[in-house]
């Protein structure tokens, strides 16, 4: 078990290294010259020498490989440099904008679990019935709309028509309820489907029939089935947490939250490549870490499946 976790950690380190390489490559593809852009911002009408000077200052006259190594060696210790845009250390901006986004994602994760698990159980237990069919149809509708539009609809319903929430700013945890719901609804629509079918798989399998034949209580059987049925849901929940953080920009726009999504969009708009690199790296690290956590939880729940599912082990 420990050995397995350790070897996965090694693979993850390699994956993260690949991520930094890929991000650096992507942002360096940009057609806009960051040095030119900064020089324009600093001197209004920069001369050729001034541009060269800025380029040297930023280290952009070095070969790409050298730039990458310089960036990576600093980034490992948490030093992402200063934003081209504001001139302030990126790490400060990042930590300030991570807080609301993490709150949003955590609350959304909670809501997703609270929606997926009971509705999944309900539709599996009444398979083919009215509830099952309604949940299925509702799921298709929710999967077919963007979460930011659901945000607008929730806002219309619960901030305008029935003024329970305020629509501007996000300070209290209460202000995150509507945005988190908007994220959670389409995500749970997909999750309910998966959880339902793995529950049905579990109940239809031989070990349940055997357990029933031995006269084991239904409560104990439900425990056995849930060990079998939860891992796919846990994987999805882990993934959706990362997707929420990466795709939070739209929800943040709707509810005027100053999170990492809006920070990234601003950086993209002004081609602030160092900020983009830092944001992408942080998001990717969270994404990988949460997925790893989901894997560990699954390994604890159902050790046998874990070995079967990893492609490296087949």
């Amino acid at each position, binding site marked *: 078990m420990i050995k397995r976790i350790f070897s996965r950690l090694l*693979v993850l380190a390699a994956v993260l290294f690949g991520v930094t390489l890929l991000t650096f490559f992507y942002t360096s593809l940009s057609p806009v010259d960051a040095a030119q852009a900064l020089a324009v911002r600093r001197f209004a009408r920069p001369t050729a020498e001034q541009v060269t000077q800025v380029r040297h200052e930023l280290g952009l006259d070095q070969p790409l490989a050298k730039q990458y190594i310089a960036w990576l060696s600093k980034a490992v210790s948490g030093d992402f440099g200063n934003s081209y845009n504001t001139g302030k250390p990126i790490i400060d901006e990042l930590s300030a904008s991570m807080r609301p986004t993490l709150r949003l994602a955590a609350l959304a994760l909670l809501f997703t679990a609270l929606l997926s698990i009971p509705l999944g159980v309900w539709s599996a237990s009444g398979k083919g019935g009215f509830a099952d069919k309604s949940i299925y149809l509702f799921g298709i509708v929710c999967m077919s709309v963007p979460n930011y539009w659901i945000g607008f*609809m929730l806002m219309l319903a619960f901030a305008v028509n029935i003024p329970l929430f305020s629509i501007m700013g996000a300070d209290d945890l209460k202000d995150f309820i509507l945005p988190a719901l908007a994220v959670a609804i389409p995500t749970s629509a997909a999750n309910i489907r998966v959880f339902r079918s793995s529950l049905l798989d579990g109940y239809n399998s031989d070990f349940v029939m055997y357990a029933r034949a031995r006269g084991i209580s239904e409560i104990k059987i439900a425990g056995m089935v849930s060990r079998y049925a939860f891992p796919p849901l846990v994987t999805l929940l882990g993934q959706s947490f990362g*997707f929420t*953080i990466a795709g939070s920009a739209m929800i943040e726009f709707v509810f005027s939250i100053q999170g990492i999504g809006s920070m990234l969009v601003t950086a993209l708009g002004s081609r602030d490549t160092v900020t983009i690199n830092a944001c*992408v790296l942080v*998001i990717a690290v969270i994404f990988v870490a949460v997925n790893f956590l989901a894997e560990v939880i699954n390994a604890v729940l159902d050790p046998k499946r874990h070995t079967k599912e990893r492609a490296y082990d087949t």
Partner: protein
Amino acid sequence: MIHKILRKPQAVIGLLMMLTVFAVMVFAPAFAPNDPEKINIMQKFAEPSEKYPLGTDDMGRCIASRLIYGARVSMSAALPTIAAIAVISVLLATVCAYIGGIVDRLFVIVSDIFMALPPFLVAMTLVGLFESKALSIVISIAAAMWVWNAQVVRTYVIREKNKPYIITCRMSGCSQMRIIMRHIIPNIFPHLLVLYSTGLSGVIIMISGYAFLGLGFETGTPEWGAMLVGANKLVFSHPELIVYPGLCILFAAAGFNLFGEALRDICDPKEN
């Protein structure tokens, strides 16, 4: 197959919705009462009338026409994107999974790296890379999404290639190319149709997300997501302007989802 589709109401409804979207896309100029991009400040927020069936927006543009042209803008970006995703994912996944061994392992590791970057992130970093805005949307979404589809295709191919009939083919001396093109791909084709039909609805939603963030489209393009830019200011005064574009996205995406899901039930009745 076609017979089975026609006997399933859900598939027929989905198909009709898809056809409606395609028809609106092709015949947008015939359906639209006005020029979708014509700004008329005098007619700001006009009430629905004969000339403007759904009224006008904050720039005095005809909302109905913008919604109709929106189908054209969204679909003409979404269709090439899903085609690009399909070609890349089928090609790479089929070849790697079929060859197996070290190539397949390498493929898994590489796709793990690509999957560690959430799709939205990749597409956001890449969008705006090319001169042509439409092209940069297609490429950035394809670059972000191919790996998620390729993973699914890979499992289909592996499941298929271990079936007895493929082994028989190999014994009887079929060439590798022939096995892939004539046997594996046709046999997993229904599954691919499901994958890319539901995938298309995801792409439509993703594109609207970009337009909403102001990435990738010229300002003023009649796109459903773009029509929601700055909608925060309208929640109190003109909520209907927020509702319409979302309903259009819902209609288009739900059509592909309903059809895809019905097809899935037809392909593997057991999984239901």
